[in-house]
Each structure stands twice: as structure tokens, then as C-alpha cells.
């Protein structure tokens, strides 16, 4: 598998602020990659440098081998970016905007693909509607469509579901999964961690312009989170001292245990049986990206 996006030692300053501090990472072709971090971490700045909207002070970024500065035309042909801001051209209809966007990439007679994008984003009925007349969610869909008109092998989605309804999210992720299956590399930034957890195979965590974690989603979850065991035991029953030391406390009537590995469940249940403590209810929660995210940022 070859590298779709190679980011090497990128530094970007805005005055005294170090927005990106020697950021390096490689994103493989065909990956569904998540770029996470709190507000101001540098995610959008990194995407701007990748898309050529900003110039890095140091370092280089390549898209499928093409430098985004010195070979910008080749790099941009291979990149589709959904910007975070809800922007639109008020003079034109949805179809006109998509035709213009196709033309900017040198593509003529693109209506067949435009129709397919419109159908997948549930925009067919709005194709001839002026952009000004669309709701915020519809405008967001058009932004996604505009990023896809030239069938870019690398798609960057900067907070694409911010402020949109559940239906669009589901449509959008279904469409993105399909494009990813067809070989498109997808880079996603989002504040919805459950989306990143369910979609992204690998994640990068940014904080203060630095990469603080870069690994598979499963590995990140294991390292910074884990399964949680919640047990309801009869009122008045006391945990043995060793288990009490392991407990994370009582939440909503459940004794909770943060597990470093799933197999620890068996040992806890065995100790309870040894002490004759009955279990009235039991729940095991999977690792939680939100918890992992918070812990990683605190480190």
C-alpha cells in the first residue's frame, strides 16, 4: 500500500502562535483516517496547508507523491476538500455550482457523475434551486458534492456534519463508506467522537499544534480507555478488600470497574462467587473514544 498523504515536519506560525509544531504523519491509500483534537489544536490549519489555502513555514506535504506547493496543480487534482465554513455562491443553482466546480478541474460534460452525487446526497430535487434558497443542511450537502465533482482519490472532510440532521449524517457516512470501499482515501475531522470511532481505522490526536497520538483506533482505545464492568450487588453486601481497591466507585447503583483487559471480568466474578456475593445485574461497556480522547489530552 502506498502513501496517499505524506506530511513531513510541517511548521506553521501565525505571529507568536505556533499553530503547527513539526507535524509529521503518513496516511496510506485507502485509509479512513481521523484527525481529532480540541478547538485550536491545529486540525483546520493542517488541512489548509494540505489544500494549499495556507503555506507551511517549514516542512512539506505531498498528495500521492505531488508536493502541494511546487506541484500544486497535480496535488489539487487529486484532492477534494469539504470546508468547515458553510459557504456558497449566491448567484447560481446547485447544478450550475457543480458544473462550474467541474470546469475548474478541467472536466467538461460531467452531468452523469453530478447526477450520481446529487442522488447519493439526496439533492436531486434541489438540483435547479438557487443556493440562497437552500437550508443550512442542504448547503452542507452541496459543499460535499462540490468536493467530489472531480472524483478525487483523496477526500478531506473538515467537520462535515457540524449542525446537520441525522438523516444527512447517515446518508453522508453511507456514501463515504462506499467511496472508501472503492479505494478513496478519506481524512475526517469531527467533534463527534462516535463518528470517528465507527468510521476511522486510524487516528491522529492533535494538541497545541503537536501530534500527541498517531495509531489505530483500536490501539488508542486500548491504551487510553478499556472495557468497563458494571455490577449491581445486593444492598448491604460489601466488596472484598482487593475488589474494593479495584472499583472505580458506584454509579447509578452499579459498582464499576475499569478493565485494562477484557479477561479481567472472569477474575472479578470469581472473587465475588468466592465471597458468596450475588450479582443482580451486570453490564460490560466497550472502550470509549471520548474517555481515551480526554485521557490522551491530559497526558
Amino acid at each position, binding site marked *: 500500500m502506498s502513501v496517499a498523504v505524506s506530511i513531513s515536519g510541517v511548521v506553521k506560525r501565525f505571529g507568536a502562535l505556533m499553530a503547527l509544531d513539526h507535524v509529521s504523519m503518513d496516511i496510506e491509500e485507502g485509509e479512513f483516517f481521523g484527525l481529532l483534537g480540541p478547538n485550536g489544536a491545529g486540525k483546520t490549519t493542517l488541512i489548509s496547508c494540505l489544500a494549499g489555502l495556507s503555506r507551511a513555514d517549514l516542512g512539506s506535504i505531498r498528495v500521492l507523491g505531488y508536493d502541494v506547493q511546487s506541484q500544486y496543480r497535480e496535488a489539487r487534482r487529486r484532492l477534494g476538500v469539504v470546508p468547515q465554513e458553510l459557504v456558497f*455562491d449566491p448567484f447560481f443553482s446547485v447544478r450550475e455550482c457543480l458544473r462550474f466546480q467541474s470546469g475548474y478541474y478541467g472536466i467538461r460534460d460531467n452531468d452523469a457523475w453530478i447526477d450520481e452525487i446529487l442522488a447519493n446526497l439526496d439533492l436531486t430535487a434541489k438540483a435547479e434551486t438557487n443556493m440562497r434558497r437552500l437550508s443550512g443542511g442542504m448547503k452542507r450537502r452541496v459543499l460535499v458534492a462540490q468536493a467530489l465533482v472531480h472524483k478525487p482519490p483523496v477526500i478531506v472532510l473538515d467537520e462535515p456534519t457540524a449542525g446537520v440532521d441525522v438523516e444527512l449524517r447517515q446518508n453522508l457516512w453511507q456514501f463515504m463508506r462506499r467511496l472508501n470501499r472503492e479505494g478513496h482515501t478519506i481524512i475526517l475531522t469531527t467533534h463527534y467522537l462516535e463518528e470517528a470511532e465507527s468510521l476511522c481505522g486510524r487516528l491522529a490526536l492533535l494538541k497545541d499544534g503537536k501530534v500527541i497520538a498517531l495509531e489505530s483506533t483500536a490501539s488508542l482505545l486500548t491504551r487510553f480507555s478499556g472495557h468497563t464492568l458494571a455490577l449491581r450487588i445486593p444492598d448491604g453486601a460489601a466488596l472484598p478488600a482487593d475488589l474494593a481497591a479495584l472499583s472505580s466507585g458506584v454509579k447509578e447503583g452499579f459498582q464499576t470497574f475499569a478493565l485494562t483487559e477484557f479477561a479481567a471480568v472472569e477474575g472479578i466474578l470469581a472473587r465475588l462467587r468466592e465471597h458468596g456475593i450475588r450479582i443482580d445485574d451486570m453490564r460490560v461497556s466497550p472502550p470509549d473514544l471520548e474517555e481515551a480522547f480526554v485521557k490522551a489530552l491530559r497526558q
Partner: protein
Amino acid sequence: MSGFSTLFKKELLRFWRVVFQTVAAPVLTALLYLLIFAQVLDEHVSVHGVRYAAFLLPGLVMMQILQNAFANSSSSLIQSRVTGSIVFLLLPPISYGAFWSAFVLAAVVRGLVVGVGVLAVTLWFAPIWPAAPGWALAFAVFGGAVLGNLGVIAGMWAEKFDQLAAFQNFLIMPLTMLSGVFYSIHALPPFWQAVSHYNPVFYMIDGFRYGFFGVSDVAPERALLIVIACFVATAALTLGLLRRGWKLRT
């Protein structure tokens, strides 16, 4: 040039969608100028041996060509920067040369459309026809292109509409109004005649008027050379700024 033809078409459609504002309004303004000044002065004044209304008309046409060429490129850029839709032009692989030529050519086209419109509606009041249409067209195209370049620069420089209006009202408007649209500079005192020669718009107006009457304050060859030099200088500056991504790419 990748993207040039699309961007050019989009820029043309953009002003055509609001044709009342971008074409009809400046045509009406020019018509009102002509009606008022011609009514007051036509019977009392003649310049270069032609009636005042006829003398005034080419100046008015050229003034509208220049002002609308500037308005087209500057308003399109500032609008897309303020609304953020400029990103649709910055993300694709459009070269800065294609970007520049599409904006400036569209500015020239809008200027010419307004100019033809002014000529068409004023024919009834002051019927004139170019004696040397090639000269008139050359000054219209290069003059419009100079102002189209300045419009691109202003559209990149201004952060808000207020700043663009200042550029337009305090630089472009005085340069065009004080360029001999309403008078021959020979009617001015020597000092102001000399000052007028430092105003590049004066050569555009004077040369354009030569295309109609075959007479001018300055030899048309010299005027055209100066206008072309202004075009080359403003084009070089605009291309340089676009290449750097000045105020467009951080």
C-alpha cells in the same frame, strides 16, 4: 489553461444575473449626465469644433467602461472573499494566470457591454459614430483592462466593502471625473493641464474620443502607448500579487 474558460463564463454570468444593477443602472446614470449637461450647455459650448453633447458622449461612454470594469473584478473578488466562497477558486488547480485573465477579461466585457448600452440609448440625443473605430476599441479594451487589474488588486486588498468603496470613491472616481470627460484639458489653466498629464485615465478618455472625432488633446499613438504601459505595469503587479496569493492564501 485549466479552469480559465469556466471561470470566465462564471464571471460573465455573475454580472448578467444582476443586469439591472450592473448594466442598466450605469447606462441610466450616463443618460442622466448627458441629458442634464447637454440641456444646459449644448447650445453655448462647442469643443474641438463639435457640439458639447457630442463631445461629452464618448467621455461618458469611456467613463462607464472604466468604472464598470473596475466594479466587476473588485466586487466579485470582495464578495467571494467576504462570504468565503473564494475557497471554490482556491482549492482547484487554477493557475494564477488563468485566474487573472478570467477576471480581467470579464471586467473588460462588462465595461464594453455598458459602453455599448450607453451609446445605444444616447444615440437619439447625440448621434455620433466612430470615425476610427479601431482606435476607440483599442482604448476601450486596454483602458478597461487597466481598471480590471486595479479592481483585482482592490478586491484582494480590501477586507470589507467599506474599504473597497473608499478605493472606488477616493481614487477611481476622481481619476475618471478629472480626466477630461466633461471638458478638454485645453480649457484648464496651465498648472492643471500639466497635472492632467499625470492622470492615466486622461489618455484613455482622450484616445477614445479620438476614435470618434479624429481630434484629441494628445497624439493617439502616444496616448495608446501610455495606456498599454499602464496595462503592462498593472498586469505585472496583479499577476505578482496573485502568484504570491497575497491576502488570498495565508
